[in-house]
Every structure is written in structure tokens, then in C-alpha cells.
């Protein structure tokens, strides 16, 4: 992402050239006044955001961290609980570990599929075909569909008895092997419910933001690199492996991290389409938080669950950044070894 070193580099350069030309005390004083004025106005402009940050982000976060050590149901009395909530999550809550595992499985399947799927569509659009803009728009539209609407559309498509997908499966079976394939009930089937949710997310992701970002990144690769590689006898696969992949590795990393963060928090489709069922087959971690917090109003325990998610996500992101040093290549960056 953006390193702090490049912050404000454009600022100030040449701004006080006049003042620097002379060094009389009066000018210095005027400079100080200007400087104070600048700082004053900077904070005025930042004020709404800073108020929001304290009131709606940092303050509440600290509050919820504190709350995780209390037993508190909305509208009742607080009682200090020490580590009870945390212990409860890890040892007593029977839905906790299964929901963690399910969420990780969801992310582990969905993220590589959608990241490399989006890379694939981006590479297709990067072939300088005619109608590329049209294709890009068409590929992007699913990403815009409100997830609630998408969930209902997919519920209909994947219906076990009158859904289009099962009908197509049946026809394909007839065509290929002479006997229809009987599709599962998808959202109603404990085995297929989670993959069905993945399908909704994949549908929205394969041509979405990630594809657009990949495409911009691919277009930024100097054509010369491919030409040189071709002269050296590299085939398409070698060009992809030795030129494309290293050159887009920062984008790949960015998309990967963001896709992980989003997948681990997936909520809406599961909430609308399955409500966590059948038999808890789609009971993702965010549903677990939602149930405890906004249905049971167990705010203390909900905060604990939210903070576990926060800590895990932060650690995860941190390690991804650490690991990225060995595989992400930033052009223009010098590296030893």
C-alpha cells in the first residue's frame, strides 16, 4: 500500500521562497504567523474527520475492548467477568470453532478462485480485442448487484426443484451420457450450501474490482519486456511466469489481502440466503457474531467475538505483509540478495 515516506513530499516545496530570501526578524515573525495559520486551518479542515474518528471509531473500539471483559446484556447491569468471555469463546461455545473452521474453509476456497479468476478475465481483456470496453462492462455488472438482490436471484437459480441450474445439469447429462444429472438442492443441502454461497461471491468477484485493478496493472507492464522475452525464446507460459507475474505481484498481493479481509467477514449472502443453515452448514463467523450481539443482545460476548476477529485479521494481514517481501516485486526498488 502507501508507505509513509511519500507523505507530504510535495508540500511546502517552494512555498516560502520569498520569506527565505531575506532573514530580517520581521519576516521570521511573519513566517511564524503564517505557519500557525496554516496549522490552524489544517486542523479546521480535518476537524469533522477527527471528531468522527474519535467518536465513531477509536472511542467505540476501545470501549468494545473493555466491554469484552464484562458480562453485559443490552439494558441490564454491567458485571465484571475477567476473561470469562474469552474462555467461553475458546472452550465452551460449541458453535465457535466450527464457525471459525467454516469461515476459513470459505476463504481458503473462494479467495484463490476469485483472485486468479479475476486475473484470468483481466488477461483476457488485455489481449487488445475489439469490444474490450463492452466486455469489461458486462463482466463488471455482477459486482454491482446488491448482495441481497443477488442472494434472492441465486436462491431461485439454485432451487432444487424448479431452479434453472438443475434443469441445465439435467439437460447436459442427457446430452452427454444419455441420462439426466440430478442436481442437489444447493442451499438446502448441508454439503452444497457453502459452495453455493461461494458461487454468489465468485460471480460478483470474477469481473469486479479485482479485475479492473489487475487490468490497469497489466496495462502498465512495459511491452519491451515481452518483446525481449520472446526474442530470448520464451513461450507464452514462460512469459507469464517470468514477466507478467513478477510485474503484477504488488497488485496480486493487494487483491489477495483485500479478498481475504472481505471473505473472512462475509455476511450478507449467508444471512439472506440460508440464515446459517441447513444444520449450521453455512454458519459463518460473522453470523455467529450477529446472532450473539443483535439477537441475544449479549454485547460483552459479541465484543469478545469481534475482537478475536480483529486480532486474527490484523495478525493475518501483518504476516501477509511480512511474507510478501519474499515474493512481491516492486519495480524501481533495489534489493540485496
Amino acid at each position, binding site marked *: 500500500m502507501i508507505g509513509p515516506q511519500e507523505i507530504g513530499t510535495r508540500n511546502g516545496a517552494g*512555498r516560502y521562497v520569498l520569506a527565505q530570501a531575506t532573514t530580517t526578524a520581521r519576516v521570521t515573525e511573519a513566517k511564524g504567523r503564517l505557519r500557525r495559520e496554516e496549522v490552524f486551518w489544517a486542523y479546521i479542515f480535518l476537524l469533522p474527520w477527527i*471528531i468522527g474518528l474519535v467518536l465513531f471509531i477509536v472511542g467505540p473500539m476501545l470501549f468494545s475492548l473493555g*466491554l469484552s471483559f464484562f458480562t453485559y446484556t*443490552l439494558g441490564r447491569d454491567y458485571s465484571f467477568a475477567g476473561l470469562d468471555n474469552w474462555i467461553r469463546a475458546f472452550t465452551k461455545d460449541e458453535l465457535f470453532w466450527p464457525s471459525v473452521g467454516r469461515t476459513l474453509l470459505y476463504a481458503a476456497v473462494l479467495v484463490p478462485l476469485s483472485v486468479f479468476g479475476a486475473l484470468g478475465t483481466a488477461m483476457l481483456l488485455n489481449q487488445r480485442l475489439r469490444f474490450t470496453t463492452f466486455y469489461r462492462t458486462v*463482466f463488471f455488472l455482477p459486482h454491482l448487484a446488491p448482495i*441481497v438482490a443477488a442472494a434472492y436471484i441465486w436462491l431461485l437459480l439454485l432451487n432444487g426443484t424448479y431452479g434453472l441450474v438443475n434443469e441445465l445439469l439435467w439437460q447436459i447429462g442427457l446430452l452427454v451420457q444419455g441420462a439426466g444429472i440430478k442436481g442437489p438442492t444447493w442451499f438446502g443441502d448441508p454439503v452444497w450450501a457453502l459452495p453455493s454461497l461461494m458461487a454468489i461471491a465468485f460471480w460478483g468477484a470474477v469481473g469486479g474490482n479485482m479485475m479492473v485493478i489487475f487490468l490497469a496493472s497489466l496495462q502498465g507492464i512495459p511491452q519491451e519486456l515481452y518483446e525481449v522475452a520472446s*526474442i530470448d525464446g520464451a513461450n507464452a507460459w514462460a512469459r507469464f511466469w517470468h514477466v507478467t507475474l513478477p510485474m503484477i505481484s504488488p497488485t496480486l498481493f493487494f487483491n489477495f489481502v483485500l479478498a481475504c479481509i472481505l471473505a473472512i467477514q462475509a455476511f450478507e449472502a449467508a444471512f439472506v440466503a440460508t440464515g446459517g443453515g441447513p444444520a449450521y452448514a453455512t454458519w459463518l463467523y460473522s453470523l455467529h457474531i450477529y446472532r450473539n*450481539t443483535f439477537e441475544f443482545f449479549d454485547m460483552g460476548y459479541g465484543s469478545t467475538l469481534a475482537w478475536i476477529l480483529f486480532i486474527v485479521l490484523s495478525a493475518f494481514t501483518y504476516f501477509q505483509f511480512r511474507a510478501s517481501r519474499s515474493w512481491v516485486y516492486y519495480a524501481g526498488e533495489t534489493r540485496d540478495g
Partner: protein
Amino acid sequence: MAEQVARTSRAAAVPSRDLLHPARRLLGRFGLHLIAVLIGALLMLPFYWAVSSSLKQITEVRQIPPIWWPSVAQWHNYADVWRVRFFPSWVWNSVFLTVIATTGTVVSSSLAGYAFARFRFPAKNLLFSVTLATLMLPVYVVLIPNYMLFWQLGWLNTYLPLTLPFWFGTTFSSFYGTGFFIFLFRQFFMTIPLELDEAARIDGASYPRIFWSIMLPLSGPAFATVAIIQGIAQWNSFLPPLIILNRPEAYPLSVGLRYFVVNPGDGLPRDHLLMAAAVIMTLPVILLFFIGQRYFVRGVVMSGIKG
């Protein structure tokens, strides 16, 4: 001159391979188009199914085997949706919330972006890192305590929690946190020549005046980008209204859709109306995207720059 020659020879080096096989090249192009059309068709299929189902009778929606297009398109389904209890209010509520929240985001994040682009002040680097860190925040860590705050203030079941925080540079549960919008404005403002500010300063213009008379008129694309991205995100926003509101007439469309599954009166299914409502909800987003596609795509690309 030498550069010119080098470039032409180098450019010729690669295509020549392809030129030897014009037929194969044509076939390759054709194949790529075929793949693109196939992917596009697959991705469009759910939209097609939604539109086609929205024009069926309920018996046709549940017909086995399913039919691709209704025998008679039931256009009146769309009129019927509007007569569903509260539906017009849901649409209006969605429009209202989207406009107020988006305007708030645009105002607050453009002001902060201006400060980060043009001013030197203490703790600047720290604060800027914070804007970026908020991008990584999981929703629930802020949502739960905020819910309690709003409950304490008696703001539950009002639109205040769904609008006011946006005027203070906060957004809940959206892929693009406000940090991203501040960053986007900062990047854009930094491309405006500093000389303009200096000239204005010498003429005695104050900082707010510079923002209003120089930054604002020159930053149309940045404002359009943020407005479109946040507008779409807010229109689609689901979790915050779900937990804040519990009176059906106050719902936005995203939450209201959940009340379509069965008819409250007779408990009969009404998938056809649900699909019509889904189409009605999706249409403005797609429209907005088409209007501002250029800006939208640039904004998305900016979110990924620097990797």
C-alpha cells in the same frame, strides 16, 4: 534516428512470428472472442433469469421444467410491486439515505483530503497512516459499540446513525472505508499546480476561499468518483439499516426485500414480485455505473495503485 530504427526493428521482431500464420492468428482472436462472449453470457445469466422471472406468473416461476421466457410477459408485476405495502417508502428511504450519506462523505473526506494534500501540520504522517489503517478494520469491532452508543442516545429507529456519521468521515461496512476517499481526494488535489494556491494567497485569499474557488472547480472528476462509488455502496448497504431500524415502513430497499419472500396476508409465495423488486433495486446502480463508468473505474484503479 537510431532510436527510431531500433524501435521499428524491435516492434517488427515479435509480430513477424504471428504474421507467418495469419490464419492461426485469426483463429486465436476468434477463440478469445468466443471465450469472452461465453464468460459474459454466463455472468449475465442470473440477471436474465431475474428479469425473465419478474415477468412471469407465480405458477410459471415454479414450473417444472423451468421456462426461459413467460408465455405472456406480465408487465403489470412491476405495477403490483409498487402496490406492495411500504414498497414506495422503501425506495424513497433508500434514495434519501443514499443521498444524505453520500453527500456527507463527499464533504467530510474532501476537506480532510485537502488538509493532507496542501498543509504541513504536526502529526500529519500519523493521522494519514490512520486513514489507511481504517481500511482494514473489521465491521463488527466498530458496529457493536456504535450500536450501544446509538441505543444510549436514543437514536435507534431513527436515520441519525445511518446519516450523521458520514458527515464526520465515517462509514460502516463498505468495501471503501472513508480512508480510501480521503486518500483519493488527496491524490487528486496534489495534481493541481501549487502555483494556483500561491497566486491566490498573494491576492489575499484565505484557505477556505482557495478550497472553494480553486480546488473545488478543478476537482470535478474526484468528486464524481467518490460520489458514485459511495453512492452505490450506500444504496446496497444492508447490515447497518438491518440492525438500526425495526419499523418496516422505515426500511431502505435492501432490508425491505427480505419481506417479499411470502405474502404476509395469505402466506403465498411471490417470487415473481421479489424478482421485480430485485430488478428495481439493481437498475439504479447499473444506471449510475453507466453514467459515471469512467470515474468509477478510475477510482477502483486508484484503490489498487502502489499495490
